[in-house]
């Protein structure tokens, strides 16, 4: 028994030592920017994840929403009340709670579309880099063409086309998935290009030749052997694109082609609140906007830091 315990202990110590030795970890604890942005990102994510428990009100429970409370300013202004920390909107919903629920959808769409884009991009990059020749040429040509259009425009176009195809009534329920699909399809190119160039280097290495010689199926070589070696840069791209994906979602929702107002994301909240800007109720739109900016800024800072920390040329 003690042998096992000491083995676990040794393992733990080994793990800790390795972590302390790790360049990335070292760089992390010495960078205030990285620590602060991680904390902020985590706070917002946790707030969003546990929105039903953290939020002081349920903005979508019709029984608890009172029209008498509509358009109340934040507590530090005349007529504000402390039960609504950031004021209320036109239907008496608590803006702070709406932000918590809204960031839930924003972050969900962001994560899902980045995962979706990365999945497509990594597979395309692996195949193109490993196959070479005509397959590579065709895939990269498509990537080039798509890259010459801004991602947000492509997302807008795909979203618009899908809106045309799908029936109106059902659309609200699947809006989130349509968004994930459009954003994912417009963001895959960068992964594909990066992975492809790494694969072209890995392809000539001995371990790949060895697995070819012993007759492993191509699928195994690609996904079990090459893929783990080319995923490093994917993480950096994914972090930076997470911020972009969240902005894209917010923008599409703001333009009215994203998440419907029945279960609003941050972008939808801003769109809805924008109508009240001119009558002086600025908090309905500005606070969701602020939440969006803080979230995106924190993720961007983290991504910037990660890119610099992983790039030895900049040290």
């Amino acid at each position: 028994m003690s042998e096992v315990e000491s083995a676990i202990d040794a393992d733990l110590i080994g793990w800790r030592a390795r972590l302390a030795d790790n360049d990335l970890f070292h760089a992390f604890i010495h960078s205030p920017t990285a620590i602060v942005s991680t904390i902020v990102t985590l706070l917002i994510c946790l707030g969003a994840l546990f929105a039903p428990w953290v939020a002081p009100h349920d903005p979508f429970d019709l029984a608890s929403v009172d029209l008498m409370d509509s358009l109340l300013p934040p507590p530090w202004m005349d007529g504000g009340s402390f039960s609504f920390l950031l004021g209320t909107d036109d239907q008496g919903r608590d803006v702070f709670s709406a932000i918590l629920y809204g960031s839930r959808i924003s972050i969900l769409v962001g994560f899902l579309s980045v995962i979706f884009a990365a999945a497509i991009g990594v597979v395309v990059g692996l195949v193109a880099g490993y196959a070479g020749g005509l397959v590579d040429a065709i895939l990269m040509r498509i990537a080039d063409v798509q890259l010459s259009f801004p991602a947000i425009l492509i997302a807008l176009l795909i979203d618009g086309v899908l809106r045309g195809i799908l029936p109106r009534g059902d659309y609200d329920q699947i809006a989130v998935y349509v968004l994930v699909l459009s954003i994912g399809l417009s963001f895959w190119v960068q992964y594909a290009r990066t992975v492809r160039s790494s694969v072209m280097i890995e392809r000539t290495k001995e371990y790949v030749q060895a697995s070819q010689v012993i007759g492993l199926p191509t699928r195994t070589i690609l996904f079990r052997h090459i893929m783990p070696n080319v995923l490093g840069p994917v993480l950096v791209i994914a972090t930076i694109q997470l911020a972009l994906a969240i902005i894209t979602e917010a923008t599409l929702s703001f333009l009215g082609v994203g998440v419907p107002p029945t279960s609003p994301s941050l972008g939808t909240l801003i769109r809805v609140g924008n109508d009240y800007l001119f009558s002086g109720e600025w908090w309905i739109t500005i606070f969701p906007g602020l939440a969006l900016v803080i979230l995106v800024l924190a993720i961007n800072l983290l991504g910037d830091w990660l890119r610099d920390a992983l790039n030895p040329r900049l040290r």
Partner: protein
Amino acid sequence: MLLFVLKRLAQSVLVMLVVALIAFALFRYVGDPVDSMVGQDTTLEQRADLRERLGLNDSFLVQYARFIGRAATGDFGQSYRLRQPVDELLAERFPATFELSLVSAVMALLIGVPMGVYTALNRRGLLSRGFMTLSLIGISLPTFLIGILLILVFGVVLRWLPTFGRGDVVQVGWWTSGLMTRSGLSSLIMPAITLAIFQMTLIVRLIRAEMLEVLRADYVKFARARGLKPRTINFSIALKNTLVPVMTIIGLQIGSIIAFAIITESVFQWPGMGLLFIQAIENVDIPVMAAYLMLIAFIFVVINLVVDVLYFVVDPRLRVQGR
């Protein structure tokens, strides 16, 4: 050189054909074009007749070829929503978008390039760090939020500037210009700034990164060793060599300007092509969507071609390889 340009030209035509295919598929298969054109009380015979007259019974390839032929002459049919020819609609909206984009691009270049150079030369300076932080905030601020904030501050609180529309315009031939009237200019300020900030942050970061890269190059070190003046090194040698990649990005930027113009126009209700497109999406107005798609693809292809050719002019190394 000629071969290179021809090759690029062939590629561009291919891209246009693919985009045309998408636009055509949209037009033909999203909803029924006949349903969108006629009223409720049209009889089945009339529908069949219209179907035959529009050539919707022909084979896919024939219809596709006809679509391209029409598109080449600018004929995209009628808008379902506005019941006007699409090409007229776009021509009517084009000057608004063009003026907005041009003013914002000039603004972004005039401010962005000096800022980028400065931050590269004084890497550790306080002001440089300030600029970099600002540019990071600029990237994190979505375009539509910049617009909303400007509207709140200068439109609602201070009441200095108009918050929507284009103001008074002057008709010059078929072109309408807002650059010549007071209300036109004051309406332009906020949308132009909104559209410029995104480009500016990118230009600053790009120029800075390229400058830093070039300043490390051997020929710059050699120039220093020769004892050339820092000003000569920085501007005649370093800045000049950053121009090639910067040119590509600025060329491609024009694409993002089009994309972000859609957002800006939507925030400020600016009567340009972007607003037309957003309204087309909301109403599933396919002819307008298809035409806009083709127009954007065309602009992109032309810009890419021009940038590629400019490479040859700017970078002598490419000319040697090309031979």
